[in-house]
């Protein structure tokens, strides 16, 4: 029996990761819905939504690790793809409001009525259908990444220069989405959502389902990333990361590889954004802020670049810390703490949490093997030597 392309070469940490995410994805919604509110084991709805947010961040982190950890492309603009996926979902949710808005216009969202739009802009058409919006969640970030990557990788823009232009890209989008005449609600973004596929977005059941879906998406994203990095293509990506020009001299078209993995990564970030929006209830231009993209890169660095599991773990750990600190008296210092965390990790744990753990396990194994060998050697020495 040949293993399926998505499940072959799942090592132990990968299997554990999937089991944990799947377990949480089932148990947390069940606990939230079935146990009586207030019982010790019941996960309150606000936490379900919070964990759902973490799951989306974990998908974003995976998408960054795929390009940065394995191919050396440091994108400091991945928040843009996340936000674009979020906006695509937000547009669907806006159109679901229908005549229940403040102005009661059956077609135009409230902000358009307020801004005196005569009719729905052409690019809002189709977003009343879920399948179309879901398609756009993947197509729009993917298309932008493809065009951007085509220009950048063909001109061999690499390293810091590439990072800077990705920042410029997300900053340009931030400015554009801030404008009222851009057609996406300007400064306020899209909010006041009512329902998704006919279910009330605020309802406990919907939130639990969205959380479960986010976990499912996280597992799928992880499986796709694993399939990519364990294939021969994954070896080529690492080769490009470590010695790009050498890879060219072997006859690989480096720009095609980068374009493929960058586009795939952007699509995944888009899906993460789309799952994020109904759970937080709003999408606005601040999601394009360059700082967001940098934060996401820090998650990956903290968890361990080039390990996938580490990226997801880093996203959860750092965001948990953020939730914890920004809701206490230390809130104004969060950015300093994040910066300090980044510097500490870079200096003390350059491989991140999971990378350091893996290295430690390797060295454990090696000492075991070495001990076994030297024990065997001593046995040999202990035997009486034949007379010479």
């Amino acid at each position, binding site marked *: 029996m040949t293993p399926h392309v998505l499940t072959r070469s799942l090592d132990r940490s990968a299997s554990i990761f999937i089991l944990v995410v799947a377990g949480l994805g089932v148990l947390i919604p069940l606990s939230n819905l079935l146990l009586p509110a207030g019982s010790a084991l019941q996960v309150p709805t606000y936490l379900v939504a919070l964990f759902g947010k973490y799951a989306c961040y974990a998908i974003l982190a995976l998408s960054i690790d795929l390009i940065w950890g394995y191919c050396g492309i440091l994108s400091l603009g991945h928040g843009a793809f996340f936000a674009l996926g979020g906006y695509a979902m937000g547009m669907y949710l806006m159109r679901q409001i229908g005549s229940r808005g403040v102005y009661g216009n059956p077609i135009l969202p409230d902000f358009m009525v307020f801004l005196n739009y005569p009719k729905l802009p052409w690019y809002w058409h189709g977003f009343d259908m879920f399948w179309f919006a879901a398609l756009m969640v993947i197509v729009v970030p993917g298309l932008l990444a493809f065009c951007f990557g085509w220009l950048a990788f063909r001109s061999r823009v690499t390293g810091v220069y590439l990072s800077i232009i990705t920042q410029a890209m997300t900053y340009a989008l931030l400015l554009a989405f801030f404008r009222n005449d851009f057609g996406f609600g300007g400064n306020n973004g899209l909010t006041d959502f009512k329902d998704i596929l006919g279910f009330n977005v605020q309802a406990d059941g919907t939130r639990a389902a969205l959380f479960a879906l986010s976990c499912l998406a996280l597992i799928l994203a992880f499986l796709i990333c694993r399939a*990519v990095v364990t*294939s*021969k*293509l994954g*070896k*080529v990506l*690492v*080769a490009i990361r*470590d*010695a790009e*020009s*050498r*890879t*060219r*001299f*072997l*006859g*690989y*078209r*480096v720009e*095609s*590889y980068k374009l*493929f993995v960058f586009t795939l990564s952007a699509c995944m970030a888009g899906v993460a954004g789309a799952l994020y929006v109904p759970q937080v209830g709003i999408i606005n231009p601040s999601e394009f802020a360059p700082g967001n993209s940098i934060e996401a890169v820090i998650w990956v660095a903290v968890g361990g670049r080039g390990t996938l599991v580490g990226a997801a773990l880093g996203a959860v750990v750092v965001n948990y810390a953020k939730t914890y600190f920004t809701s206490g008296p230390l809130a104004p210092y969060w950015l300093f703490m994040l910066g300090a965390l980044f510097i500490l990790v870079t200096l003390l744990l350059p491989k991140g949490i999971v990378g350091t753990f893996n290295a430690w396990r390797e060295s454990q194994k090696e000492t075991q093997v070495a001990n076994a060998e030297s024990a065997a050697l001593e046995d040999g020495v202990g035997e009486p030597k034949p007379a010479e």
Partner: protein
Amino acid sequence: MSVMEGRTTSALLYLDGVHVSFDGFHAINNLSLTLEAGEMRAVIGPNGAGKTTMMDIITGKTKPDEGTVLFDGMTDLTRLDETHIAELGIGRKFQKPTVFESQTIEDNLLLALNVDHSVKGTLFWRGNRDESERIDRVLETIRLTDARNRLAGSLSHGQKQWLEIGMLLAQDPKLLLVDEPVAGMTDVETHQTAELLKAINKEKTVMVVEHDMTFVRELGVKVTCLHEGTVLAEGTIDQVSSNERVIEVYLGR
């Protein structure tokens, strides 16, 4: 790919009147050189003579300002990029050994194999008998069979040189450009490398850049001496090393 009308030369590699300057510094000056198919050529010359730059031009890394560079008598290499030139069958070993340090020796060779190098091909790649046999053979040739699962970064300098030669073999090109293969090798390893290159030359055309005169002598092939980006002398090792100009600029009196 630009193909000229028919063959203009019988040579496998033909350079004529090539000029390259870096910010006004003329690294290659009116360089002309031909390599016949099946030939092995040793290229010597002082540091900075332009030997590596010549290989950069042939492999598409550096574009010449002027001059003709033809492969197989038909293909204008100056118009192609590195990937394309590698696909044509020109392989290169770098002066500073460049292997994929974080991958195993076996994976280094796997990456070098001249099989489908497209994104789709590598994404859906599955190993087959033929490929693993080829890798086994190369591993044996470069004496790294026992180390196949070790990371390339853990190899000694000399072993990395051999791994790079192994990658060239896996690539199976028509023309091999080998830049300073024995730097950092012991005398025994140097001798083995000469033997290996001679064996490779039975099937392939080879250009070797090297400073080690014992090694060049052992190869026993035609020698070209470069100086300031141009050919100073060409001929047997004895002819070249008795050439007065060569003694003056390179070998020392």
